[in-house]
């Protein structure tokens, strides 16, 4: 129904407003109806304003900014529509070191109320996980599972 849809839109916007500036270190994201008179048929636009920049359409964001904006939408969805679990496969691949740290920080916080499985190569993300599973390929091409402690997974310190 229309009222539920409008209420869901508002709660998603609220959750997004809470998480976006924490991921980007400032700025904001705004959702808007393409046809506000008729939410049941309307589309939804998303405008993103990274800190220090003007609001801009998603198309002109950089690769890392897009990944971070998508992560903020996912965290917002986790708030308003919890699911038994979430699987995120290398969503941090395009992020620079500072953004990986912010992402991993939020992951840890949202992991308190949601179960999150994250596949990653980034050290910042591994460090904040509650548990680590290592997957390796033996010599003859079959996958095996090893339970890891964090020290095993991190490249040897320089």
């Amino acid at each position, binding site marked *: 129904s229309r009222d539920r849809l409008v209420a869901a839109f508002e709660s*998603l916007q609220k959750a997004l407003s809470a998480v976006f500036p924490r991921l980007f270190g400032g700025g904001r994201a705004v959702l808007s109806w393409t046809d506000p008179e008729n939410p049941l048929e309307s589309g939804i636009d998303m405008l993103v304003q990274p800190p220090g920049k003007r609001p801009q359409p998603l198309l002109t964001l950089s690769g890392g900014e897009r990944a971070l904006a998508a992560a903020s939408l996912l965290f917002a969805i986790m708030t308003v529509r919890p699911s038994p679990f979430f699987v995120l496969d290398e969503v941090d691949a395009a992020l620079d070191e500072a953004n990986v740290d912010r992402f991993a920080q939020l992951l840890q916080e949202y992991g308190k109320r949601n*179960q999150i499985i994250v596949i990653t190569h980034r050290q910042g993300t591994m460090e904040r*996980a509650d*548990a*680590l599973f290592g997957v390796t390929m033996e010599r003859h*091409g079959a*996958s095996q599972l090893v339970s890891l402690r964090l020290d095993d997974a991190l490249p040897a310190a320089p």
Partner: protein
Amino acid sequence: MYLKSLTIHGFKSFAQRVELVFPRGVTAIVGPNGSGKSNVSDAIRWVLGEQNIRSLRGSALQDVIFAGTDSRKPLGMAEVSITFDNSDFALPLEYAEVTITRRTYRSGESEFLINRTPCRLRDIHDLLMDSGLGRGSLSVIGQGEVDAILSVRPEERRALIEEVA
């Protein structure tokens, strides 16, 4: 309702049976390129009823069955089971623990089970409908798909909100 464990045997590169027991909170899966990490996420999508083989990086249904390597023979079956704690009865079943199993054979046959009782794929879809794990939910974001969340067209984004409503 939360995820307790996942068992994979004969699915893609998992020739040997593996079991992942998940703690609450954040679990990281790590490992070299090509070791089988995304195959775990494919196994989760598959056992929850995924029917589009292309979104599992295959072209035929049998592509999910271990195809053999230099020193291991191909297997005849792939099986994945996923177990949830259902003590809050979020899933409309009388069980405090629910296990969904999916099998497929080289012959092309498929089997679906809920708590070891044979059922149809439809039953799994119905079971998961309102759980947040149904089709179209964003609970599994595959590799390279993070960008796609942003680039859906505005009408599709409304479906996102409807999912949330």
